[in-house]
């Protein structure tokens, strides 16, 4: 493991930011899944993929969201507090620093995704059972929720680093990620400007696709994975270029 990556992992460990995001994610996933589990009409969760889409898939959404916030903050908080200066004095190869932030955030982000999936499953299953509704997921569905949730969160963590590196200012970067994932993408689901099915090509929709949500509307999981990986790569390249070319204040 490179010194730059070990340093980034140490920074995450020695700050409370990651723990704060993790706890907020746990609470939000549990709350949202509980509300949906209690509120959904029994007829809309009478199949495995419907249950994933309506209920269990929320773990993927919030895992990706909080991993993206973690990734963005790994760079925006250094800019905000000025620690980016000593960081770049010690390692002036800025692309290496950005790459280390990407790997560290992806690693922790994958953990966020796994835990979010587990919480969503636990709370979702308990809620459905309490209402006398059977959980209809098969082994493949569970595997997809866990592996897909981890992969989607890891890739969104990389997107977060890229967005943070380009935007630099912490509040707009974090607000932008939240608004995009929770609001904008929901408005764009479906057709855009008369072109059918464009919404499913967006990065948030791709994250949902990876964990097996809404197979009639969204892409197949593997296609979603490849697409999201392209988004992540593009964001990292943009963030890396911006960071290495622009002056540090």
């Amino acid at each position, binding site marked *: 493991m490179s*010194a*730059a990556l*070990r*340093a980034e992992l*140490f*920074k995450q460990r*020695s*700050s*409370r*930011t990651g723990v704060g995001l993790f706890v907020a994610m746990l609470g939000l996933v549990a709350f949202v899944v509980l509300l949906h589990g209690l509120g959904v009409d029994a007829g809309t969760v009478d199949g495995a993929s419907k249950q994933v889409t309506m209920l269990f898939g929320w773990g993927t959404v919030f895992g990706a969201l909080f991993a993206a916030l973690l990734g963005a903050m790994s760079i925006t*908080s*250094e800019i905000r*507090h*000025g*620690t980016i*200066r*000593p*960081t*770049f*004095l*010690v*390692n*002036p*190869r800025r692309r290496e620093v950005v790459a280390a932030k990407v790997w560290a955030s992806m690693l922790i982000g994958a953990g966020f995704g796994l835990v979010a999936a587990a919480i969503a499953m636990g709370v979702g299953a308990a809620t459905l059972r309490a209402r006398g509704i059977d959980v209809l997921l098969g082994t493949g569905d569970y595997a997809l929720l866990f592996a897909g949730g981890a992969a989607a969160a890891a890739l969104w963590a990389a997107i977060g680093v890229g967005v943070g590196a380009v935007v630099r200012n912490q509040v707009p970067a974090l607000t932008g990620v939240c608004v995009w994932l929770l609001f904008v993408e929901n408005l764009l689901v479906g057709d855009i400007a008369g072109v059918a099915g464009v919404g499913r090509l967006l990065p948030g929709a791709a994250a949902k696709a990876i964990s097996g949500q809404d197979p009639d509307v969204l892409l197949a999981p593997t296609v979603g994975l490849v697409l999201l990986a392209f988004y992540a790569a593009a964001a990292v390249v943009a963030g890396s270029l911006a960071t290495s070319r622009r*002056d*540090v204040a």
Partner: protein
Amino acid sequence: MVSVQRLTKRYGDVMAVDDLTFSLEAGTITGFLGPNGAGKTTTLRLLLGLAEPTDGEALVLGRRYRELDQPAQRVGAVLESNDFDPGRSGGDHLRALAIAAEIPSSRVDEVLELVELAGTADRRVKTYSLGMRQRLGLAAALLGNPGLLILDEPANGLDPAGVHWLRSFLRSFADGGRTVLVSSHLLAEVAQAVDGVMIIDRGRLVAAAPLDELTGGGRTLEQVYLGLIAGRTS
């Protein structure tokens, strides 16, 4: 140690650094003086690879800073007195930098001892006084045991005992054959500590000479300085 050739940095219409040329000899302490906004900090940022020059070049040990191998083991620098995550402890701030620079963690304890922060290393930086933050920044710069130290306004926020400590520290650092470039607007503090002086105004070098040469004829550094930047208030 340091070679700056026709260094220029322009921000829009503003020439922050204008055709600056100077060099630093090993084993000396050089005071870098000038009014606020004269371009001192910009020059140091260019020297340290944090900003790119519009024209000219700034070399450290014969290379651009961003191309130095193991820069922390060669150059220590403090640009701002508060470049810390307030939620992280002082010791962890140093540990993160030591890991990145591949410096053994035992050195973290050494520099903490050196700047007299060993007892408070576990406290979060948000509880530190300004003087403690200055010393923590200095500790970070010293992690790699560098031969060149570049400090921007290191005396700000230090009490008289702290200034005295800093001065004797810099003296012993340079007496060991190492080099210091220290920017300041506190002329009295600088005059007691430096071997040579560079004065810049509006991005241009207006004086560069050994201190005793500048202050020959019984003039104080302050009189020389005010004479050079006459008619300007900062």
